[in-house]
């Protein structure tokens, strides 16, 4: 299948061409070329997705096919999860480029070149079947991300955000590299399929490498306590870049964890799999809780959305960590839904910044009264975050809920429900404040200092241009429409089973043996409709209670004040100092490592 390397090659080649004239290329030409490249990627990934549904496509670069079970070259093992991830990345890059068409201050074609390199790296990361190649695309993604994050380099906020982001993720990359070194020294292989063939018994090297590689990837995936860089980076990056960070970059870390666990580790760790599951699901629950609470406490719109990404990433991590077909399928659906909804919300926040020149929730009270379209998108996005049916992440969460029950980890789903209530409720609170003008004019959680807003990134305009409100509308519509148009639930679960079928995948990659495709019967009733409706209702209730807290009876107000004080303590831990971030990072690796060593021996 000749098309396989092109989702990586086309954006890279076009980026190289765009960077040649540098800042002297006319803006319209750069926009046109970049949009065409992103559009091509979307179509190419869609075609690969369709072909990979039957059998994963294996493409050996340089023609170096494996000899005697030893992989000599690098391969792209395209499965629908990877190709779907590539398609989602292309769609989000396309949305970001359309959003920045007018008024966004771009330095010639350099912004477009960086976005295209980012896209190429995401596609390469999703499609590759080689461990070191995964690392190379991880670093390419990071390099483009650091530059894009610090884009508005005249202000201090973006510089701080980019520095914290760069140092944290680079330490994570070094952890991955040490893990790769350990695995290579032990097995002499770098190809996922060959590694899974060679690692047949659980041993120290496998566990140590698992800890290190997963920790590095979880830094990218913003699991607590590796998450401190994410809100700093999101609050200051340009809006089109934020949607990529939240929509696909964080999820790329989770895809990497899924690949490592599924393709490499689940076989040697078979006996101790329940313990590994428990560790990862608990980690996901903690992340969801901390993310949700911190999201509720914010007044900077983008920082609030960033913390909600942390929270939802925790839910997705639990899906990945549960290591069963239904759970991984649920996580894949959740990634799709969350990516589309969160991107729409970030773009709406970008429109708010463009029209009202601030993203401070308190300053924006009532200013959105004349803008019902934006208000509706915000409100719909908030309900979608809470899991309003039939949005894709509703199906994902329902599947995850069903998958965790037989594993005995059902308690975690209560935490996930609470996180959805918190994040959805916060966005609804913001919507009511900005677009209805209700609510107290002081913040809900005591302030701990720090920036509450950012400088506008676009030239002002009297009305919101079509190129700005069209992408979020399309993304939101897609989030609701895609599960209705395609039967995603069955497909996601079947393909997830394939990702976890280590032996079958190894045989297919190394020898070309065809893989079996299992299709389970779908449940007759719509998944957990009542649960989703209750969560949405609770989110609305939370927003109402927060905004109308002056009218509450006194005992509830006292309780609220106590909770706010507790929340303030957590907020103070997020000091923005890089030393603190890395200290928490090392502590997290040590804790994760200790848990794995004790439980997985």
């Amino acid at each position, binding site marked *: 299948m000749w098309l396989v390397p092109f989702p990586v090659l086309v954006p890279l080649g076009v980026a190289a061409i765009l960077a040649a004239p540098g800042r002297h290329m006319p803006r319209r030409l750069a926009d046109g070329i970049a949009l065409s490249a992103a559009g091509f990627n979307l179509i190419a990934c869609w075609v690969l997705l369709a072909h990979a549904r039957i059998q994963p496509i294996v493409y050996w670069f340089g023609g170096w096919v494996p000899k005697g079970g030893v992989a000599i070259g690098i391969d792209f093992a395209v499965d629908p999860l990877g190709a779907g991830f590539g398609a989602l990345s292309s769609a989000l890059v396309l949305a970001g480029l359309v959003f920045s068409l007018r008024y966004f201050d771009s330095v010639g074609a350099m912004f477009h070149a960086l976005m295209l390199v980012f896209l190429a790296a995401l596609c390469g990361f999703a499609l590759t079947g080689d461990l*070191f190649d995964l690392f*190379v695309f991880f*670093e390419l993604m*990071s*390099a483009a991300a*650091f*530059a894009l994050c*610090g884009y508005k*380099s*005249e*202000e*201090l*906020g973006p*510089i*701080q*955000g*980019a*520095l914290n982001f*760069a*140092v944290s993720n*680079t*330490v994570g*990359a*070094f952890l991955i*590299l*040490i893990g790769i*070194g*350990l695995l*290579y*020294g032990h097995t002499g292989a*770098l190809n996922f399929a060959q590694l899974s063939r060679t690692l047949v018994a659980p041993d120290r090297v496998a566990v140590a490498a698992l800890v290190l590689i997963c920790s590095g990837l979880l830094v990218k995936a913003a699991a607590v306590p590796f998450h401190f860089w994410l*809100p*700093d980076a999101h*609050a*200051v990056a340009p809006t089109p870049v934020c949607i990529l960070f939240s929509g696909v970059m964080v999820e790329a870390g989770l895809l990497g964890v899924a690949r490592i666990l599924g393709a490499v580790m689940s076989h040697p760790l078979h006996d101790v799999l329940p313990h590994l599951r428990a560790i990862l699901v608990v980690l996901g629950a903690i992340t969801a809780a901390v993310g949700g609470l911190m999201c509720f*406490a*914010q007044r900077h719109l983008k*920082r609030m959305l960033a913390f909600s990404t942390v929270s939802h990433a925790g839910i997705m991590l639990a899906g990945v960590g549960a290591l069963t077909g239904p759970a991984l399928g649920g996580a894949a659906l959740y990634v799709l839904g969350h990516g589309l909804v969160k991107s729409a919300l970030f773009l709406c926040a970008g429109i708010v910044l463009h029209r009202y020149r601030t993203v401070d929730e308190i300053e924006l009270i009532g200013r959105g009264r004349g803008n019902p379209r934006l208000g509706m998108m915000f409100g719909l996005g908030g309900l979608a975050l809470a899991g309003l049916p039939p949005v894709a992440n509703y199906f994902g969460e329902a599947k995850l809920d069903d998958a965790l029950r037989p594993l005995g980890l059902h308690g975690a789903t209560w935490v996930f429900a609470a996180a959805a209530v918190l994040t959805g409720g916060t966005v609804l609170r913001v919507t009511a404040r900005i677009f209805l003008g209700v609510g107290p004019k002081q913040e809900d959680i005591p*302030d*701990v*200092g*720090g*920036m509450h807003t950012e400088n506008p990134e676009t030239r002002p305009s009297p009305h919101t241009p079509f190129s700005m409100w069209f992408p979020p509308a399309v993304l939101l519509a897609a989030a609701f429409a895609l599960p209705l148009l395609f039967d995603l639930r069955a497909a996601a679960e079947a393909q997830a089973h394939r990702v976890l079928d280590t032996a079958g995948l190894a045989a297919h990659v190394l020898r070309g043996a065809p893989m079996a495709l299992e299709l389970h019967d779908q449940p007759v009733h719509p998944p957990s409709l009542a649960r989703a409706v209750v969560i949405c209702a609770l989110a609305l209730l939370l927003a109402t209670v927060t905004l109308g807290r002056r009218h509450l009876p006194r005992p509830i107000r006292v309780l609220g004040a106590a909770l706010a004080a507790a929340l303030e303590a957590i*907020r*103070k831990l*997020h*000091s*923005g*100092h*890089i*030393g603190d971030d*890395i*200290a928490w990072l*090392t502590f997290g690796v040590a804790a994760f490592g200790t848990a794995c060593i004790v439980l997985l021996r």
Partner: protein
Amino acid sequence: MSVYGFLPYALTAWLFGWGLYGIVSSRNWVHLCICLAIVQSSTYVLLLGIGYRLGAAAPVFAQFSASTAAVDPVVQALMLTDIVVEATVVALLLALAVRAHQSTGSLDPSASCEMRG
């Protein structure tokens, strides 16, 4: 495993640990970049240690026959990638440090804590 056989792995852990400590306690962005380079050099030691073979030659056969025992060329290629990655990340970080100094007049990380909470 003999002491000499384990020594490079111990060196890896040593460099990694001290580099991380340097990053956490750093009061200067340029110092922090150099500590990152130290952490990276621990990965070089690990990779090269893994590929080494006692008494074998370098994997370059310009002057002797191709059947001579050689060390692993793959880790050396991996390390090449590693070096390029490090150089580029340090370049980006130093550019950001220059900007931070322009903004705040100081290279101390504590001076750039504008975003918190």
